[in-house]
């Protein structure tokens, strides 16, 4: 049976604050019930440290103080992340065992969408650590055999008489989210995790998997503070890095059914316009070049927005210089792509907006 304080200290706290996080046996219903009981023990030292660590995570993205306590969504998310990592454990059983864990973890992640910004932030404070997880793998090549240890230290017996047994040790640190080999079910669970923590999904647009999907996230961007937070994060990452993912997600949204949900497409149009305006404000006179692939060309999206009249006017922007910079950016994109491509993009976006 799980010991809740040890789980908080050895897994959840390192997930938020960094350090070694220990992945053990998968957590089931009984363990989850024990973890939920922890909500009644607010005075534990581990709870206090965890709340501080989560507040530190939030302080990098959110300006205002926020109470971060150990509640039911926290316990479910922590258990789900643990099980997701346990699915990559080399000692886990066969296919049936994996299916049982996957089924239970999917249930854990079936949380209702966050109803308020505070809940959005609380979930992100727990899930943000997943984006940065690393694992050190060790390969041991001896005169007799080759051993591979994933996230584990090799036993000392295999390291004895290194010279005689011709032991060669190779260590490799991989970023779990990007480099770990995952099956389809694991990638599906990862998607469910990002769906349960929408802010984490919004703040990691460049992640390799699952790709950014804006349909379910647009509703949160209608809150000005969240939209501002995301735009600042994207500008920090750089539009050259973020642009392709955003542009792909934009055109995917414009083609899909999700665009109609709560005016999702109009919201994302507003976000892209705001993104370029904030960029012009921060870094004048530096238009952005797009990549070769038209679907991944964020300046082309801005051009299409301009063609559809979705860009705010100079008065609404509040700064004539910013409006001039946006016009200059569009002029450069127009010259690069040509009038034919501009017409096609504008028509495509117009159809999506009208549908």
């Amino acid at each position, binding site marked *: 049976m799980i010991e809740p304080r040890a789980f908080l200290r050895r897994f959840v706290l390192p997930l938020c604050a960094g350090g070694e996080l220990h992945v053990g046996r998968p957590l089931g219903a*009984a363990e989850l*019930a024990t973890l939920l009981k922890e909500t009644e023990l607010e005075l534990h030292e581990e709870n206090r440290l965890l709340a501080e660590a989560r507040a530190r995570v939030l302080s990098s993205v959110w300006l205002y103080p926020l109470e971060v306590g150990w509640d039911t969504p926290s316990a479910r998310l922590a258990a789900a992340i643990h099980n997701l990592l346990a699915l990559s454990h080399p000692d886990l059983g066969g296919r049936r065992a994996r299916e049982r*864990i996957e089924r239970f973890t999917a249930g854990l992640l079936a949380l209702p969408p966050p109803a308020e910004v505070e809940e959005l932030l609380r979930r992100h404070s727990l899930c943000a650590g997943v984006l940065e997880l690393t694992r050190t793998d060790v390969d041991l090549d001896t005169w007799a055999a080759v051993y591979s240890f994933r996230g584990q230290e090799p036993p000392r017996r295999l390291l004895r008489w290194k010279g005689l047994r011709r032991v060669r040790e190779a260590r490799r640190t991989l970023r779990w989210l990007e480099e770990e080999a995952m099956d389809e079910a694991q990638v599906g669970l990862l998607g469910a995790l990002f769906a349960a923590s929408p802010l984490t999904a919004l703040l990691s647009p460049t992640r390799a998997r699952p790709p950014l999907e804006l349909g379910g996230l647009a509703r949160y961007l209608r809150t000005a503070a969240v939209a501002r937070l995301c735009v600042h994060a994207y500008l920090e990452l750089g539009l050259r890095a973020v642009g392709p993912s955003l542009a792909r997600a934009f055109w995917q949204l414009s083609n899909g059914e999700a665009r109609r949900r709560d005016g999702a497409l109009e919201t994302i149009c507003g976000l892209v316009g705001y993104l370029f305006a904030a960029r012009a404000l921060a870094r004048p006179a530096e238009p952005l070049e797009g990549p070769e692939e038209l679907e991944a060309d964020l300046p082309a999206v801005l051009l299409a927005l301009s063609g559809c009249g979705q860009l705010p006017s100079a008065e609404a922007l509040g700064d004539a210089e910013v409006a001039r910079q946006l016009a200059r950016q569009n002029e450069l994109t127009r010259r690069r792509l040509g009038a034919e491509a501009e017409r096609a993009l504008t028509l495509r976006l117009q159809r999506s907006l009208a549908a």
Partner: protein
Amino acid sequence: MANQTRFMAPGLHPDSRGVALGRLVLVLLPSLDRVVGLFRALSERISLDDVLTALKIVQVRTPLQSREFVVELPVSGSHAADGLAATAALLGGLSFTGTSKHFVKYRDSRSPLGYDVDSLHAGQGDYVLYDSDFVQAYQREREIPFAQLVLNLAPQREREDRLQASDQALLRVVPGLWRAIVSYLHRSRCACEVAACERQPQGARAAAAEQPERFYLLRCRLAPRMEGLFRSTPGVELHRLVAKQVAVELGYRHPLALGSCGSIFDEGSFYLFSGSRGALDVLAASPAFVPAGSLVQLATQALPTETLKGSAAESVTVPLRLVLAGGARPPAVAARVPVAQAPWLKKLIYLLPPPAFAELALCATEDFIYLYSAHAIEYIPLGEMYHQVAPGVLAPIGYELLPRVHPDVLVQHLGSGEDKLVFFTPEGKAPVWIGRERFTPLSRRALAAVALARPEPTPLDAEAGAGAGAIQNDPLGLFPLWGFREGEK
């Protein structure tokens, strides 16, 4: 050279230690970066302002057309010359001394009193340098003004650079942000001044008749928490004033210690070295700084105490007096609790009902904790109770203010009301005023900031490793799913 008082080389004379020395020390360096290196080292050790009048940097050419650099520095004695020669040697330079044209090798360990020449070199040249191994004449090619050298150097990154408490900060802000930042600083009670500046485009942009770039300078002393904020805000550059009219971006350092060569900067101009843009903004006129207080809406301006003690009005007015009063007891709206009673207050807070947390606000000072409620303060039986004489004017229970002027007159006279609370204390001291924004609701744990004793727990090991989490797979045993259930039985 020992005891020699007359020298063949012109302009040489023995100094007080008997070392052969001219008016100048001349350093021969092979490249311009070595020249910069020499001044980097010298600017840390001596004040370059003292030598700038006679300092020259000259590009010279040998008869074989190779180019080198000569730095002429005036020296007052061999002690100063020793320092120069040692620094020059570190940079691979050769040191000579003399007064004009003929320069002999400066002293070294083989000849502690210096060198002289047997005969003067008869060849053509602006400089003739006599070393122990060679004699070489040099033609002057061009002179590089020291100021031009300094202004063309780009600041270098210095990651650990932080603002000190004594440093004056200068924010260079793009037009769209300055109002927001001035308001923020004003709200945070950071006194600051603002100036609007224009930077004339240079080079090709000037030729294309581009509009001058407008930006704003904010001069202030920043709280440490604001440093990171401004350094990471796009559109804002945080500079440190290193001289009256010179600022260098925080996180960068000019290769030279600019404080040692302040005289090269024009008094009427302003220089802004930006490391992130790799540019130098030179303002033709000193920025006209205007106090930010006059540019934002004032809601919390401090009440000058002199208003109450105005000597000019004293002859015709009577002072406000706090006197004992009888009659009905008005409801208490504030309390003043001595800090010594803070532990009692802390215990009491656990017993307070929810409405009290919504109503009560708290402000802790060095001696007292002030509690205030807009309606009535009924839950705190500690300290001294205050009732409201006029909006924002508070007197202890059992006291009243004389003369009994109309409350509006009192408010106008004291400047209290929406922004501040004025407490008249029975000790006979001057009234105390506290801005309402200093009162924090109890529900926001304001009491924790009042230095109440609380043992700090020992941090756990896991907290020490900040940054990314590293997955460590623990052994799962023979049956990893032993006891695993997907739902309740």
